[in-house]
């Protein structure tokens, strides 16, 4: 209770400040609630952190760039210090990008920091999503947070693409041209959207300024809002932890926020920023001065989009010839439409996966202990198939480079990738599922018979056996702590009928859980010990 004069605080400046803040914003309550919150520790939990920190780097470096960049397509004659372009006609946007690179000290460094951080942001967000997928962290109660994270990934790609197009150089101009061609391929409304986006015919004179508004305002604002929701939900749910001794659905095991996580996570921000800075200082990225300003006629061979757009570009390339059809007088560009639909469908299925899996398994419980990927073999196999599908599309964006670098026929590279797009995901599914089941059986074997010690002993009657070392109870618990699920059965409804929906669900469920390996029970372990010849 403060008196009219406030409480006299003992201690120095820090105590005084703390008292000042507490009496005005109630900082003591906040610290009491959050100061010693427990946060689990695992290297894979850092992937999301990397994404968060690279976003902060993007905000900082991007703000610097806005002070010098001019997002206008007004033509100018270049008169800067870069000799090869002197006297060339170009847009103000391109000229100011060259000026940032050569006439603003630290400008080129900041451009490279910004571009590398963008690549890292999407990459780490993608890897974070894979971690969440393969460990089943998206299960109840985190399905909505998966959607929020998914939105962040898509916003990251959108932020990347809008930024990539801003310098108005030859490379990004051709990228925009491809986008325009794809938009025009949308039936009925494509021509309209293109005209609205470019303010008339491609390329118009407004697209850079429009992308700039999206790039520095709308998209980062949305990303910030979604990050806030994402982290708020992490606080509500508390972080998941990997299965292991002492880790349950009703507790959270790890280190306290203060001081350990303040030091680790705070330090990690500096490490992420430092590494981006190190890469930016030593590796050139997007040297736009080599490309020249945008001109619709030239194009350089072997051009590549930024990595995260690659899967869409690959989808465009892998589409077979002659798919365009006429509907009366109207043109339906299936050769452009199909890859767009495939790309979007892939993302939609990924976004909805938590709900699909929950429907198939009928699992409505809360999960806070992560699955080891081997203990959910079908999910892991589906994930592997998805990763391979994406990877083949991605490789498709480099058909020309693969062909020239490995001296192969471009036609055969493309044909192989078309076949691979169908075959490899199926193969990945089968192989991954078998691998997961084998690993589960290996776990069973280790629990039942112990670890191979490598010590060979000769028994009195001449037989040689290898000594197996029994594992300790903590290791054992990690290997047996998973649940033996049962598939859903098709049950008659109130009117005594088994619905088609019910049948589909039941067969999907038995497919999802088929071949499952059950965890070792204490009784099994006891039996294994009593009738074994192994030495321990």
């Amino acid at each position, binding site marked *: 209770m403060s008196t009219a004069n406030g409480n006299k605080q003992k201690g120095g400046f820090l105590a005084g400040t703390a008292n000042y803040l507490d009496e005005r914003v109630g900082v003591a309550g906040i610290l009491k609630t959050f100061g010693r919150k427990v946060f689990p520790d695992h290297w894979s939990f850092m992937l999301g952190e990397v994404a968060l920190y690279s976003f902060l780097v993007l905000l900082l470096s991007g703000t610097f760039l806005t002070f010098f960049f001019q997002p206008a397509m*007004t033509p100018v004659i270049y008169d800067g210090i870069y000799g090869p372009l002197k006297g060339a*006609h170009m847009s103000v946007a391109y000229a100011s990008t060259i000026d940032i690179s050569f006439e603003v*000290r630290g400008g*080129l460094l900041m451009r490279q*920091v910004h571009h590398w951080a963008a690549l890292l942001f999407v990459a780490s967000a993608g890897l974070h999503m894979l971690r969440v997928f393969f460990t089943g962290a998206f299960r109840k109660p985190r399905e909505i947070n998966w959607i929020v994270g998914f939105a962040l990934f898509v916003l990251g790609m959108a932020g990347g693409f809008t930024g990539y197009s801003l310098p108005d150089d030859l490379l990004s101009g051709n990228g925009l*041209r*491809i986008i325009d*061609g794809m938009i025009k391929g949308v039936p009925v409304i494509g*021509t*309209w959207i293109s*005209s609205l986006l*470019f303010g008339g*015919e*491609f*390329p118009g004179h407004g697209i850079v300024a429009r992308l700039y508004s999206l790039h520095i305002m709308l998209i980062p604002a949305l990303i910030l809002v979604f990050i806030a929701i994402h982290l708020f939900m992490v606080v*509500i*749910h508390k972080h998941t932890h990997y299965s292991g*001794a*002492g880790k*349950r659905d*009703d507790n*959270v095991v*790890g*280190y306290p926020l203060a001081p*350990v*996580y303040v030091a680790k996570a705070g*330090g990690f921000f500096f*490490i*992420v*920023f*430092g590494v981006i*800075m*190190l890469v930016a*200082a030593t590796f050139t990225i997007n040297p736009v001065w080599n490309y020249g300003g945008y*001109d*619709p*006629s*030239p*194009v350089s*061979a072997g*051009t590549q989009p930024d990595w995260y757009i690659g899967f869409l570009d690959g989808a*465009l390339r*892998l*589409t077979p*010839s002659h798919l365009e059809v006429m509907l009366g007088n109207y*043109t339906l*560009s299936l050769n452009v439409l199909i890859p767009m639909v495939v790309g979007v469908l892939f993302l939609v299925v990924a976004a909805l996966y938590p709900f699909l899996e929950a429907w198939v*398994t*009928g*699992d*409505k*419980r*809360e999960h806070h202990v992560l699955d080891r990927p081997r203990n959910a073999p079908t999910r892991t196999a589906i994930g592997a198939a998805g990763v391979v599908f994406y990877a083949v599309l991605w490789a498709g964006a480099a058909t020309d480079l693969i062909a020239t670098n490995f001296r192969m026929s*471009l036609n055969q590279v*493309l044909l192989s990738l078309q076949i691979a797009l169908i075959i490899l995901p199926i193969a990945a599914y089968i192989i991954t599922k078998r691998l997961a089941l084998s690993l589960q059986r290996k776990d069973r074997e280790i629990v039942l018979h112990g670890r191979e010690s490598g010590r060979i002993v000769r028994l009195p009657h001449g037989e040689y056996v290898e000594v197996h070392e029994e594992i300790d109870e*903590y290791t054992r618990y990690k290997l*047996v702590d998973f*649940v033996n*699920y049962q598939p859903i059965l098709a049950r008659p409804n109130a009117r005594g009928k088994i619905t088609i929906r019910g049948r589909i669900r039941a067969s999907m469920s038995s497919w999802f859980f088929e071949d499952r390996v059950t965890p070792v*029970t204490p009784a099994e372990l006891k039996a294994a010990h009593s009738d074994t010849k192994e030495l321990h």
Partner: protein
Amino acid sequence: MSDKKNGLVKPENAEFDYSAGLAKVDADKFADPGIEPHRVRMTDKSVKHEKAAARQVASLFLFSIASSIFAIWAYFGIKVYSFDLNSIRSNVLFLGLGIAFGMLGIGIGAVHWAKTLMPDAEVSEARHQTRGSEETRAAAIEVINLANEESGFSRRKLIRRSLYGALALFPIPGLVIFRDLGPNPSDTLKHTMWAPGLKLMRDPSGTPIKASDVELGSVFHVIPEGLAELGQNEATYDEMIAQKAKAAVLLVRVDPAILIEAPERKDWSYQGIVAYSKICTHVGCPVALYEQQTHHLLCPCHQSTFDLPDACKVIFGPASRPLPQLPITVDKDGYLIARSDFTEPVGPSFWDRKA
């Protein structure tokens, strides 16, 4: 650990609330041995190691200070000369390295501090189900009921329904105002700058091309007469870019014997010189590569390949339509000129290109 307050009864080590789902709970299950005992680190048991770790952390922070000072020096000290790109490279490199090591020193130091000197025994904290307790949910429902009653939201149908209508309509003006982002798509998409008698000019110099200058197997990047002049004037520069995006042409001379020409196109070429739109019919990249031996045109973006002697038909890649041909001839001075505009829209397909 019973948590009656949250409506849950959870015996120690039991799985969470089995209200639904199909997990089979084995009665015969290994007991959770609890968190693994803490393993003592060297820094916990040896003062020497502890002091060494403390020194390492402080050294990393000092290294950071030195690096930041180095970065400031690099910014001001490494002069950037306008004629020397190497000076820019050094400035970027040393400024960047200074900042990078300034950050890495802090980051690695802080993590090292946490890992060696701060407690590393794992602790456990209770976690509750996300859903509120029964009392909380009842209280929430009470709040909603009270709000409903006080406002009459359910009772006053007229107010409620008119509000729904208002809320449904108010965003529409917000969408409508974006209408002026661009004009109606017009027929300009279907036409280019090319017109009867316009000379074929070299890109980008804008000089005319004599038929006799075009040797067998040579390729010219071509723009229409007058386009280069548009580019010289700042007021018409945008117009130049927009026109060039449709009018760019590739000019090639091949042996007339290998040309497969439709009867109606017999007079579109001149002594084996053919001109085709350079804008790919797939998604609009410039089809900039000509293979002299096979007479194929290749788009470097998505590798659509067009067979030049056979009316530029698609022989590989995702494109569907041949490149449109520009009908050409020569004028009285022997310069190549267009006979007309393209006879079909150039570039990527769009819904009403034929309509």
